[in-house]
């Protein structure tokens, strides 16, 4: 390092790769190292645009034909203190030559706009040992000696720990082009990353134009200038040149995050009413829906609370317009009584629960699969409903359509479980081709036969044809009280049991339509991992890696959790050991207090153990982070080794 620190960088001495660059410029065309994949993180204080930078990088990579997966790094506060460990905000982008289904393991390259946010990621164990770190170097000249010292000591520490540290005067470089580099530095970083990963210049510029499409031309021009400046600076000054081989897409694709896919799925499902109350991390789905729903003549109603959001949706569904309410864990708890009403009165209703860490306010911005039991059993009394989980971004889109169809076919509640991980993760998928069958049919307003009953349950399926307001002769009083086929209040024991039977029978009838997904890996072997929801990609990647190492490990993914498809027992029988992999809590079996008599298992493990009377194990984490393939591999290896 030189005292002025500008236009220079330092590298890790222990790698034996120090280059003194003063006065020299590197050749622009350096042969790129070809990689299979890289995980890139951009972290900054909140408001410095690291998230936008990461999203743009991901979009450029996706358009270039790379597989991508993004993970948002979100502080819990809107404006956390600057330069604070808790305030790290940004985006992780996994860029690969093949399609990827999860965020992968630790980051290979990190861009940090200050050393505190970098520490946050190091503490979280999210950065690979020896990873490349590009850090904003302006802090070393900070007039506040505490800041300058903090910066210097972190740099010294991470260099000592073997990371490849590049100190980059981003602020100073940006000042050459814009007055306030705090806004715009992210595009400089994007330019550097495009240079490092050899992305096409035109593609990058088009992406910047798209990102700022709503701003005026001056803003767009300034950002493109910064993008180009970042690219040139990196070409001139960095010895980092990679290429992640890509496969040009052979068919049209779209790239979006899970909440956007859910919102588009709601549009495609023909549902006309979404009634919601703001809650993280579900709200962005409603934001997007609010933007586009009116274009198709539909409405997003922001209700006064979660309970009214749910009952409003029930009212709309009752009147013939199947509705959706979108929420997260605490909202689900509040909706439970109303969900019970929809089950009891047999009104179709779609509830989307974008799960976050719980209980109580928990981890609002973080991922957890903690609501499975609450979804299935949360309400009082016996309230059978359908619970399904989404496992990819594409699945978010189609599940909204499927959920509406199930809800209206079986006149029941369908809970769709997504989570904070999928909510903000971006992934490309095949562009859906519109199908008019997705949409709901027009509301039936034809006359009901004179003697027809509103709950004329079919003895085989338990399904009754619903009478919708406006249908002549169909008048009846729907009630949450126990009722007979005429919808008359009935406290008679036989009638109560008949209602319970028919509502339960509908679930059994629906269950007969389910097909178990094929086992991933081999049909039999030493260990079967069973998962649900967003962990699918990480579990299957772990299985693929384990199998490549010669281990007889497979996995089974369950989309429907209530009811579950038949045949799970037969699959489990073909493996020596079975273990669920879940992003939720279970008691560690090696804890001195924990015994067979008191161990609390992960949710799916509980369900499978009680259903099939099998002593299966579970492995899970509830750290608020997506599960990593490497952690799953380690858990599987440990399980394989156990007697």
């Amino acid at each position, binding site marked *: 390092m030189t005292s002025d620190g500008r236009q220079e960088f330092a590298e890790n001495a222990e790698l034996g790769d120090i280059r003194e660059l003063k006065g020299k410029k590197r050749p622009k065309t350096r042969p790129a190292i070809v990689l299979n994949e890289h995980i890139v993180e951009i972290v900054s204080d909140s408001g410095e645009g690291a998230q936008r930078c990461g999203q743009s990088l991901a979009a450029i990579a*996706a358009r270039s034909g790379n597989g991508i997966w993004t993970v948002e790094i979100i502080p819990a506060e809107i404006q956390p203190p600057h330069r604070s460990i808790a305030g790290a905000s940004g985006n992780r982008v996994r860029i690969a030559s093949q399609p990827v289904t999860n965020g992968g393991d630790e980051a290979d390259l990190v861009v940090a706009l200050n050393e505190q946010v970098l520490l946050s990621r190091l503490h979280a164990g999210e950065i690979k040992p020896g990873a490349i770190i590009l850090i904003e170097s302006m802090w070393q000249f900070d007039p506040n000696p505490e800041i300058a010292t903090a910066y210097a000591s972190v740099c010294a520490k991470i260099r000592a720990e073997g990371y490849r540290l590049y100190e980059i005067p981003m602020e100073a470089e940006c000042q050459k082009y814009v007055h306030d580099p705090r806004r715009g530095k992210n595009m400089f970083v994007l330019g550097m990353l495009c240079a490092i990963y050899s992305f096409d210049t035109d593609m990058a510029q088009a992406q910047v134009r798209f990102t700022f499409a709503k701003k005026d031309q001056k803003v767009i021009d300034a950002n493109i200038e910064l993008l180009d400046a970042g690219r040139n600076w990196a070409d001139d000054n960095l010895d980092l040149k990679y290429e992640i081989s890509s496969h*040009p897409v052979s*068919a049209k694709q779209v*790239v979006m995050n899970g909440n956007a896919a859910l919102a588009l799925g709601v549009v495609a499902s023909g549902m006309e009413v979404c009634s919601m109350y703001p809650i993280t991390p579900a709200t962005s789905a409603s934001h997007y829906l609010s933007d586009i729903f009116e274009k198709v003549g539909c409405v997003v109603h922001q209700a*006064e609370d979660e309970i009214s*959001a749910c009952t409003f949706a029930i009212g*709309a569904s009752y009147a013939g317009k199947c509705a959706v309410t979108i929420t997260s864990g605490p909202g689900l708890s509040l909706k439970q009584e109303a969900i019970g*009403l929809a089950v009891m009165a047999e009104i179709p209703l779609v509830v989307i629960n974008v799960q976050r860490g719980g209980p109580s306010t928990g981890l609002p911005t973080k991922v957890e699969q903690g609501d499975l039991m609450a979804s299935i059993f949360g309400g009082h009394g016996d309230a059978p409903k359908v619970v399904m989980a989404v496992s990819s971004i594409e699945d978010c889109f189609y599940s909204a359509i499927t959920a509406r169809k199930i809800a209206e076919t079986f006149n029941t509640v369908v809970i769709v479980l997504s989570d904070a991980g999928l909510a903000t993760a971006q992934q490309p998928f095949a562009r859906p081709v519109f199908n008019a069958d997705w949409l709901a049919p027009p509301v039936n307003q034809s006359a009901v036969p004179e003697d027809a009953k509103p709950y004329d349950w079919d003895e085989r399926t338990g399904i009754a044809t619903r009478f919708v*307001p406006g249908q002549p002769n169909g008048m009846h009083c729907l009630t949450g009280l126990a009722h007979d086929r005429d919808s*008359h209040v009935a406290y008679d024991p036989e009638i109560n049991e008949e209602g319970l039977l028919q509502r339960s029978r509908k679930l059994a009838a629906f269950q007969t339509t389910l097909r178990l997904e094929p086992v991933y890996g081999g049909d039999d072997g030493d260990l079967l991992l069973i998962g649900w929801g967003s962990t699918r990609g990480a579990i299957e990647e772990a299985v693929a890696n384990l199998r490549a190492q010669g281990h007889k490990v497979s996995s089974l993914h369950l989309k429907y959790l209530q009811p579950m498809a038949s045949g799970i027992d037969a699959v489990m029988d073909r493996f020596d050991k079975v273990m669920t992999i879940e992003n939720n809590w279970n008691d560690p079996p090696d804890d001195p207090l924990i015994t067979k008599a008191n161990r609390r298992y992960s949710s799916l493990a509980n369900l499978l153990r009680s259903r099939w009377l099998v002593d299966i194990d579970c492995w899970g984490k509830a750290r608020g982070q997506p599960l990593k393939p490497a952690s799953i591999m380690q858990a599987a290896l440990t399980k394989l080794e156990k007697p």
Partner: protein
Amino acid sequence: MTAPMSQCLMQMVQTDYALSDYQSEIAPRWCAGCGDNAILTAMQRLCRDEQLPPEKTVCVSGIGCSSRLPHYMNAYGFHGVHGRALPIAEGVKIRRPDLHVFVTTGDGDCCSIGAAHWLHAIRYNMNMTVLLHDNQIYGLTKKQTSPTSPHGLKSNTTPHGAVLNPLNPLTVTLGVANVSFVAQAVDWIPDLLYETLSKAYHHKGLSFIRILQRCPEFMDHRFDDWVRDPSKMRILTHADGLRLKPEVSRIYKNQETHDPRDMGRALAISSLNDEIPVGILYRDPSVPCYDELRAGERPNTPALVQTVLNEEFDKVGIWPDPATAPEIRE
């Protein structure tokens, strides 16, 4: 609420509906002397007089004695969960402007467990008629103090007398943004109850009627002073409000001409202690209705959904040949 043109045309070809067409096959099971019976009768008279097709009429309720009313109407009924009648009714109405929506709720249902929905329903001002059956007591759960119970009331939850002053549903409602129709009626003057209900029905927006209702089981004699002494009833009249029949006018001589546009006077009248006001306290037909503000401008057709989805897919599209991609735009 107003009837759309198509409704009027339909009514011309429809056979006349009689009172019995709105009576369900279930006989009311309220206690003898319960004020709810009078409210039910007024509802059925209104439906008959307005010739509302039963299949286009929806009565939504929560939980409580009052909320049993939909079972006794031959119409579509929705007997929901405690406190949530209003949001259910809002959901019914949001995409079905053709339905006539009535809400029956009680003082516990509306002013206690459902209080948040009450305030916001007033603010949404959707086209519906809300009947608050206020008997100042929890009846179905057997005599607990309600938010409108008088101070000092001895009940199962306040055996030494209620320690709090009651909440006044009229002043609360009048204080909410977008309030557009507030009236009060009593079950023991059926003519005025009917007249008030009729005015409420014809109001465009949310019409809120508080109906003081006698509970012979748990609040017997609560309103005896007013039932026995018509001079303690203050009848609000106006060219734009109630117009009294001569026989009613002869009994209820304590009358005040009150302009329903006068919010200040409405609040003062609502706060009277010794006298019970009956009639229209406040009306402003110019307040926008949420259901109309949020009505879709375009019908939700498959072609439109396809177009909008494709527009959104284009924004996030990846094309095999970038040259064929449409220009990326927001």
